[in-house]
């Protein structure tokens, strides 16, 4: 179901790559179980990723600061600094896509991880193919832009009205920039993608299922809590009144 060609296209779509030639996508795996750490590393390397590993939270933070990574895979239960704390710390510094990996899979772990700013989560044990699919979806979100693979997908009317204004919020669909009352708002790729989804249809209600499908590339198997928590995070950044909850249906962007 996967081939080298697809992997290649992901890394090409990554945008300006450091150094000559298309560099492989860098993934940092922070996992305390040695077997999983090594096996995931080997598996992902087979798919063409450059994989760095760390065994605990502080080591993970250090490794993240040391090298440029395009994506982070964090275990929730880590010694020293747990995955949730680590995710918080990383979010303060960077909007890099974060995939949480939880072995407990109960609501608290999942919600805490997503609240901390993770873009998605998987419950162990996860098949390598599934993990790679999630990684690709995350990277697609991270790299889409005017020329990104997803830009055309939603059929957004770009030029010349690439500047959309909602009250004090300005969304530049070309420059991929969001400003609130003049100040730039730093959004993670998932949050930006979600906001663009709303901006494309201001005033109309988007249900969770549809958002999960269009933003996260999930089918019915997806967990709508991911949407709820991402909306929650987005609200904190762009103003809580901007996105309204429509009980029983979903969310909508307020125009004025």
């Amino acid at each position, binding site marked *: 179901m996967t081939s080298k060609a697809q992997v290649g296209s992901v890394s090409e779509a990554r945008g300006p790559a450091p150094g000559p030639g298309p560099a492989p996508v860098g993934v940092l795996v922070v996992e305390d179980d040695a077997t999983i750490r090594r096996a995931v590393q080997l598996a992902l390397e087979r798919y063409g990723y450059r994989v760095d590993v760390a065994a605990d939270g502080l080591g993970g933070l250090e490794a993240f600061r040391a090298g440029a990574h395009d994506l982070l895979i964090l275990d929730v239960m880590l010694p020293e600094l747990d995955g949730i704390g680590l995710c918080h710390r990383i979010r303060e510094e960077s909007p890099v896509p974060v995939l949480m990996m939880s072995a407990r899979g109960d609501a608290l772990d999942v919600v805490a991880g997503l609240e901390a700013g993770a873009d998605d989560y998987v419950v162990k044990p996860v098949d390598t193919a599934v993990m790679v699919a999630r990684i690709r979806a995350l990277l697609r979100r991270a790299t889409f832009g005017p020329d990104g693979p997803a830009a055309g997908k939603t059929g957004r009317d770009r030029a010349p009205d690439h500047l959309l204004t909602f009250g004090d919020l300005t969304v530049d669909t070309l420059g991929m920039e969001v400003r609130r009352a003049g100040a730039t708002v730093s959004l993670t790729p998932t949050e930006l993608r979600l906001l663009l989804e709303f901006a494309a249809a201001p005033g109309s209600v988007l249900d969770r299922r549809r958002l999960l499908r269009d933003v996260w590339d999930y*089918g019915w198997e997806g967990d709508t809590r991911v949407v709820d928590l991402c909306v929650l995070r987005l609200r904190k950044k762009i103003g809580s009144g901007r996105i309204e909850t429509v009980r029983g249906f979903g969310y909508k962007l307020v125009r004025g």
Partner: protein
Amino acid sequence: MNHLNPRALRWKIAALAAAACCAVAAVIGFLVHDATRERGLRVGTDRTLTRLIAAEREYDRTGKAPADIDVRSRAELPKPLARDLATFKATGTGTATGTGTGTETGTEAGTGTETGPPDTGAYATWYDADPPNWFWMWGAVAVADDRFLVVRDDMSTEVRSLQLLDRSIVKSVLAALLFVVPLAALATEPINRRLRHGARTARRIADGDLDARIGTAGRARDEITEMASAVDDMAAALQRKLENERRFTADVAHELRTPLMGLVTAAGLLPEDDEAAGLVRDRLRALNALVEDLLEISRLDAGAERARLDPVPLGELVADVVRRTGTDTRVGGVDGGGLVETDPRRVERIVVNLVTNAHRHGAAPVEVTVTGARITVRDHGPGFPPDLLERGPQRFRTGASERGRGHGLGLTVAQGQSEVLGARLTFANAPDGGAVATLDLAPRPA
């Protein structure tokens, strides 16, 4: 709840108050009635005796009785009077009063006897309350041999006033009841409110709000407070137990999944075309499924699962889910069909388990049909074993060994998930052979 429910506590307490009120009124009424009657009789007796003494003096002086007094012979006397007079003759002097009922009460009469003449001085009175000539007070005294002065006094005024008294007692009791019953009903309101609050809270706890507590606010240290704190203690104990169980389940999940994850990922690294690697991967899948089912069952058992309801196009969902099982399953009635308020991930679990079960234990063709909010999974195999039809899915029971492999948890999980959804999952055998499992997602009629 319903203020008109005749079995409500408020009406029971009101009835009790009314009964107590009536009982007190009956006792006091009886005492008052009796005392008044007694006094009436005494007044009547005194009056009769006064007239009799006056008549006796008159007779002694003039030899004739006053016009309103009869002079009778013994034979003409009413029987009780005659008997009393006879008694006096035997015992000497005294006064006797009798009533029509025949009970005799020898009482030391008041002034009448003391001032009476000492020679004869035996006065008999008799209260005649018998029909037809009732409510007369008779008095008699012997003045000569076989000559008796007989006085008859009308007692109807006393009787009448006694009747009026009775009537006014009844009236005041009714008036008191009119006041007491609503008051009692109102006075139960605080109690009722506390009980209702308790019942509501207990129901909330039952519905999964484990933090709900009745609380013992308020000053009253009564049985209700005691019950409330007992229920609160119970809720706290349940919550602790449940949380321990949840934590245990989560810990077990972590401990099982972590090595499994390493295994799964490592097994994925083994060469694709190697037969031994294929065997490992196959058993790993089975082990993985078993662990997930067990964890799911323990989560369901712990009551930790809550449905996340969303409007879902059921037909579309089922078609998609069945397609993803990768089995040869016919799907019918999925187009059209409205939205159903349910948790799609749980519906998916149930449908996948039913379809997998049908393929594993039944025989092709397997058909999945969606009608409204009902999903039917049907196969054409030997049908469900009688044990399952009778008692529902049992863990690790796969029926006869010829029905194929499986750990027997799939249907248990499906059943548990359908309970979380508030849906009904029923198992039956079609008349023309084959097992039929029906999941009805329509809300239960209230």
